[in-house]
């Protein structure tokens, strides 16, 4: 059900600490913040496991339209074939993650991925591509020992999110559109979550949502980077809210860059992904001299190496002056033939045509592009965070993918852990009680949003500066000096943002939204920067030009949490090898021909 907040929510006159006008409150059992695949899956599972609960889903954009599940191209990794096994999927996932994945979370992913596919097909009506005889089709993505990726053409996400959205619509779930989370409410102890303060973009109303359990599923912070493939409204809101509430984080130095983002200078289209299936099917990467440069970086796997290596290789070619005028490289799929390309990648074919490139006859100019955040809020296999009553799923959570995510494991994570989170929050809400929230904390958050200032346009400029900074120093190639300089510049940008008076107009104000986004991105950037400084080695997607080799002393996860001065404390924690030792997985993944 879709509700207007004004209809679903009543004014609470007994709340004297809420001084300003335009304040509303709502009470619910379960509050889900997010509107993509993990959030919707969680809402559906929470509703089905406990239909009597009051479930509210607050989405920053339109539910089902914001977030990145809808943009999934390549597909979903799942063991369905008799010659494949969950052990193989598991080993590929841990090897792909350079051995620092949380082994229990990764095991949960590979063992529950089939269940969710059966549910999507039989209960929600998703249809993934079939072979001519009606059996499921599975294709090759990089870093896999078996062709196990199910898909729907090259626009898989539309099918998944369309079917999830309609299932959410016909259930008793309160869907708040264009209502963002500002900060979490905690109880007096500061260790138990009690809800969240929300903001309606259009009316400007603040909504105090008092909840027994809160799930963060807002997506990651890839838009922190100047060039990104992610949906641009995402700004790591869940991460920043959890950080300010004292939750622990893991692997925040691990940010994935996809090797082939389309270059469209001067357009928001810039950086959007051309799917990995094009390389899986035999596409080549060339530098500006038309050399197949992967020969120098991974001569065995070439373009079908994992995303971290392929992206880094491309960036190194560009840095070495062998890139194109637009600082890109070329994806060459001409030899695959028009007929094959139109059949296997019709969406990409059409997208390239709109920027004047015919894949069948032209080289495609591409760039590595910020894609997916492996790091995130520390969770257990029930999606519990270290804050009581607070849960996280999808890109907000960390640990499943280690130092690098395999293509096709991202949407699988959102579905598997979205479902788990839905059942966990329902259980927590049934068994727990709504803690009274700390009114002083709420008052402080609210006071920060009481403004008298003008609308200046400055937040747009500061956010662009932040994105350029992250691209240059927190990106694919890092070193100690760059990371130190970036930390100082983050403080400067935060200072300049803080000096802007909060605008008096809260509703219908993109300038304010941009500012809130930038504030959250700064928190995430700090976590990334400090973890990247602490990891004095190179591993997976984290590459230090000053320390280019991996070092077994760093078979650790960096765990972070906020300290009193607002900066993160960062500590190494040894990887718990519960299912595989590093020695068992030293060999490289064998890629089928």
């Amino acid at each position, binding site marked *: *059900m*879709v*509700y*207007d907040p004004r209809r679903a929510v009543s004014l609470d006159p007994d709340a004297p600490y809420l001084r300003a006008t335009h304040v509303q409150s709502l009470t619910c059992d379960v509050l889900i913040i997010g509107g993509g695949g993990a959030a919707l899956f969680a809402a559906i599972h929470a509703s089905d496991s406990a239909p009597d609960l009051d479930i509210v889903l607050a989405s920053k*954009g*339109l539910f*089902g*339209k*914001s977030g990145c599940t*809808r*943009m999934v191209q390549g597909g979903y990794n799942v063991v369905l074939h008799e010659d494949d096994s969950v052990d193989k999927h598991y080993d590929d996932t841990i090897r792909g993650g350079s051995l620092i994945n949380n082994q229990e979370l990764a095991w949960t992913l590979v063992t529950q991925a089939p*269940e969710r*596919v*059966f549910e999507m097909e*039989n*209960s929600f*009506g998703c*249809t993934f591509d*079939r072979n*001519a*005889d*009606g*059996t*499921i089709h599975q294709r090759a993505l990089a870093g896999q020992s078996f062709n196990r990726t199910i898909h729907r053409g090259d*626009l898989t*996400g*539309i*099918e998944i999110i*369309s*079917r999830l*959205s*309609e299932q959410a*619509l016909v259930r008793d779930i309160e*869907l708040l*559109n*264009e209502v963002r989370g500002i900060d979490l409410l905690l109880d007096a102890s500061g260790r138990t979550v009690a809800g969240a303060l929300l903001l309606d*973009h259009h009316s400007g109303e603040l909504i105090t949502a008092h909840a027994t359990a809160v799930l963060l599923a807002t997506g990651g912070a890839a838009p922190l980077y100047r060039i990104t493939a992610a*949906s*641009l*409204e995402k700004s790591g809101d869940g991460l920043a809210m959890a950080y300010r509430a004292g939750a622990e984080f893991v692997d925040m130095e691990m940010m994935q860059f996809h090797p082939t983002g389309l270059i*469209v*200078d*001067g*357009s*928001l*289209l810039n950086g*959007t992904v051309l799917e990995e299936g094009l390389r899986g099917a035999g596409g080549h990467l060339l530098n500006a001299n038309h050399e197949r440069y992967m020969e120098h970086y991974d001569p065995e796997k070439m373009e079908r190496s994992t995303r971290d290596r392929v992206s880094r290789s491309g960036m190194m070619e560009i840095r070495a002056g062998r890139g194109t005028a637009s600082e890109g490289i070329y994806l060459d799929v001409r030899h695959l033939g028009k007929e094959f390309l139109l059949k296997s990648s019709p969406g990409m074919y059409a*997208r390239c045509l*709109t*920027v*004047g490139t015919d894949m069948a006859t032209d080289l495609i100019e591409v760039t590595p592009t910020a894609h997916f955040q492996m790091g995130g809020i520390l969770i257990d296999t029930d999606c519990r965070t270290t804050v009581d009553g607070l849960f996280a799923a999808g890109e907000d959570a960390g640990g499943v993918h280690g130092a690098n995510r395999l293509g096709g494991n991202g949407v699988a994570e959102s579905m598997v852990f979205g479902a788990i989170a839905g059942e966990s929050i329902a259980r927590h809400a049934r068994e727990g009680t709504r803690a009274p929230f700390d009114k002083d904390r709420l008052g402080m958050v609210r006071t920060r949003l009481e403004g008298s200032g003008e*609308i200046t346009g400055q*937040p*747009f*400029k500061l956010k*662009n500066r932040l994105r350029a900074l992250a691209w240059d120093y927190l990106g694919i190639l890092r070193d100690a000096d760059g990371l130190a300089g970036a930390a100082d510049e983050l403080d400067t940008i935060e200072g300049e943002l803080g000096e802007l008076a909060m605008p008096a107009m809260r509703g*219908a104000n*993109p*300038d304010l939204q*941009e500012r809130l986004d930038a504030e959250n991105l700064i928190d995430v950037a700090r976590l990334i920067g400090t973890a990247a400084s602490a990891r004095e080695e190179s591993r997976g997607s984290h590459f230090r030009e000053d320390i280019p080799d991996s070092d077994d002393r760093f078979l650790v996860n960096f765990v972070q949490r906020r300290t009193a001065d607002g900066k993160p404390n960062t500590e190494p924690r040894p990887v718990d090898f519960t299912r595989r030792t590093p020695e068992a997985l030293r060999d490289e993944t064998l890629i089928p021909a």
Partner: protein
Amino acid sequence: MTDIAGSKATVTLDVARTNPADRSHFEVPMQSAYARVLDALNWARENEDPTLGFRYACRVGMCGACAVVINGREALACQTSLGEIDGGTLRIEPLRGLPTRHDLIVDMRPFFEGLARAEAALRPREPDRRDLPVIPPASNERTTIEAQNGCITCGACVSAIADEAKVDDGVGPAALNRLLMLAFEERDGAGAARLKEIAAEVHSLGGDAIARAESVCPAAIPLSTALEKLKSLIADHDDQG
């Protein structure tokens, strides 16, 4: 700024604001030969008016969030190249038939409620099944479903027929199209039960209106075919009693 051979170096946006009496005009430099209407709106917001309200998310035509009316015709702002537009001025309005919330942003609630009212969602026949059904892609049922698939729920169709059919009075072309898919879906357990509820709307929706909705559909879904097939299904159902 790149001056692109054979095209204008700037484009003028004439944008509707929340108050219908207000309009804003922006002179936007063409940043790229392939820049979209969305790029022009974004340029205007970042450089001229930070309060300008428009909605987008994916920017690659997959989410449908940026549907607006461009020079009188529904389209996705992210999929409409500035170079495609004739004349120097782009008139941009919010979708029709849905309440405006902020400038070009409409309240999509009535549209989504149409989908919910129609129960345009699978009601599973075998929810506990633990394998994947064999679905030959060339079967008659599957080819019918696939021909109608791909809706991104952007709302362009309801906007295009706003003069003839109010969103609140029916369920709208997108929901009707989904119901047709479900009528052929062997995994669905609700069968033809949903069709009874929409029979009146199917019969009252004119051929011209549905053709207009089809002509603006960014996913190129054959909505006229959907309506014809629904009519025939409903007739068959009536005959059976």
